[in-house]
């Protein structure tokens, strides 16, 4: 079983949702922050590839991208961060998340190979929809899960196209909008997750706008995973050198909320 599948299976065995956490590579002491995520109880790591033009991101992650690039982060640095993480944490799945232009260079095949060599388990490329899936073929060939996004605008007619070739998990973007700004109503999340789970055996993780342990727990009662990003980035931006400790405490609050026994409604 892949690291990603194991992580979701283990969480399910504990009757809880997996905690999926996002940070931007090169924004602060990323190695220490990643360790803090794992120690705090994160099940899956999303490592953001910084990009000059993060057009799907809100102010928090935009700023993190710019801070990272301003400090000189290169693609080779991101891959080195991933490789070192894999060495320290052999079991925790790590997914690279970012935009097509940096994640297909110098070619999709060469990038996929470098990522696989660094121990990367999956890739989320925000601006490669199923219509351009030919770019993603080399990722699958190198054993990297191609993680697809479903959104409130992905209707029933379109969903099969989104699921075709999807692997790892399905990321439900619960808000039509950019990262970090607002959260969807709980009932809309519940009906969307039910619809998605009826269409796929992949774990369904829900993200966008998740900030508090209460929100995480509510989503965790219906989804297989809860994704938190901008709120962690805010901790990093606020706490500077002390970010790892702050991030760890914050992640612990989320994982504790998720660990409360899951109700089995169905």
């Amino acid at each position: 079983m892949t690291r990603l599948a194991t992580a979701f299976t283990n969480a399910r065995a504990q009757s809880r949702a997996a905690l999926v956490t996002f940070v931007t590579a090169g924004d602060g002491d990323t190695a220490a922050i990643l360790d803090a995520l794992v120690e705090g109880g994160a099940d899956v790591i999303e490592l953001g590839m910084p990009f000059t033009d993060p057009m799907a991101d809100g102010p928090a992650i935009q700023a993190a991208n710019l801070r990272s690039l301003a400090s000189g982060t290169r693609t080779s640095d991101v891959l080195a961060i991933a490789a070192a993480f894999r060495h320290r944490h052999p079991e925790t799945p790590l997914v690279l998340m970012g935009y097509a232009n940096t994640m297909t260079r110098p070619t999709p095949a060469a990038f996929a190979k470098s990522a696989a060599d660094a121990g990367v388990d999956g890739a989320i490329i925000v601006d490669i929809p199923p219509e351009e899936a030919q770019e993603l073929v080399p990722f699958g060939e190198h054993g990297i899960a191609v993680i697809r996004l479903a959104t409130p605008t992905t209707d029933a007619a379109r969903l099969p196209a989104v699921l075709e070739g999807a692997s790892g998990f399905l990321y439900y973007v619960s808000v039509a909008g950019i990262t970090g700004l607002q959260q969807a109503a709980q009932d809309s999340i519940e009906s969307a997750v039910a619809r998605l789970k009826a269409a796929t055996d992949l774990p369904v993780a829900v993200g966008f706008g998740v900030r508090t342990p209460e929100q995480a727990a509510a989503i965790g009662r219906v989804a297989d995973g809860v994704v938190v990003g901008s709120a962690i980035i805010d901790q990093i931006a606020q706490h500077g050198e002390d970010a790892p400790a702050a991030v760890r405490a914050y992640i612990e609050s989320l994982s504790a909320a998720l660990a409360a026994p899951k109700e089995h409604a169905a």
Partner: protein
Amino acid sequence: MNAPNSLRNLPDEHGHFGQFGGRYVAETLMPLILDLEREYRAAKVDPAFKTQFDGLMKHYVGRPSPLYFAERLTQHYREGAAAGRGAKIYFKREELNHTGAHKINNCIGQILLAIRMGKTRIIAETGAGQHGVATATVAARFGLPCTIFMGAKDIERQQPNVFRMKLLGAEVRPVTSGSQSLKDAMNEALRDWVATVHDTFYIIGTAAGPHPYPELVRDFQSVIGTESRAQMLEAEGRLPDLLLAAVGGGSNAIGLFHPFLDDPDVAMIGVEAAGRGIDSGEHAASLTGGAPGILHGNKTYLLQDEDGQITEAHSISAGLDYPGIGPEHSWLHESGRVEYVPITDQQALDAFQLCCKLEGIIPALESSHALAALETKAREMNADQIILVNVSGRGDKDIYTVAQAMGAEI
């Protein structure tokens, strides 16, 4: 219908021009992009849509724009040329359109599509403000609320256009992220759109972005080439030997070129902004100085570093100051059908002043890049050959920039 081997059949059904183009957008936008494509296909074959578009072009925009024999400029280059050299120069006068540039052609087409789709709010990005003004104009004409995203730096240096947009009823929203210029304005417009897809139509200003934008913008702008072809046949009884147009995103150029692509005897040159020179690194010449990549919904040539980080563009002409180019130009470049050459800020400034003095026409700095290519082309071609230059916009908006470059105070 075009012949099977026509150069005018692209994009393919997936929106690709060879390896370029495509639909590289977030999943949230995909359903809308597909809706737009369906709606555009329907509009294309709907006689009522064509009637409405043509009517507005004639009575609101002021088309057809004239084809004009630039007699004194022709004479000027003949004087410095070898015997029998010095091509005959014609201008396509897009600067005479309502709002002063070709931009309005596209905006008319897109707002009609927006209305067809039942959208009730318009957004657009703008650099110098020309597309913003054209969009605010059509939004006012059709009574739709309109928000224009504009880099904070551009707002500072383009106050007259900012005020124009406000007079036309648009909200101008300053973009303070990134480099605070055109590409960031486009990022911010896309961010708005992801959250407002249910009621908002995004009027993209050039023949770029996700499919079907490059195709539909080209089609709306092709009125330039279609008119030029007929006007040239009437004036000279034959087609021109060379077409010249400036290329930023490339909508005025593709609009002129596309109807001529299958005429093998018509050569075409797209003029890119070389800024302070290609070697200086401060330029906006995506084809000459960039590499293929993916940004703003399409695969195309981009200014970028080896990691794929987008680098800043520079041109004295704000309308060319963008680190990418429309995907069809990338394809025409690689296929060799169109030649692309760089022209520096200084060359464009010289051509700007020459055109003012010899023809009594103040051209936009964008169009001045195309005019600057005459310096070598007009002189080396024969006197019985014809060059057609697209004067895509008027230069009234640029007089402050030009004055500053000349060291004049106004």
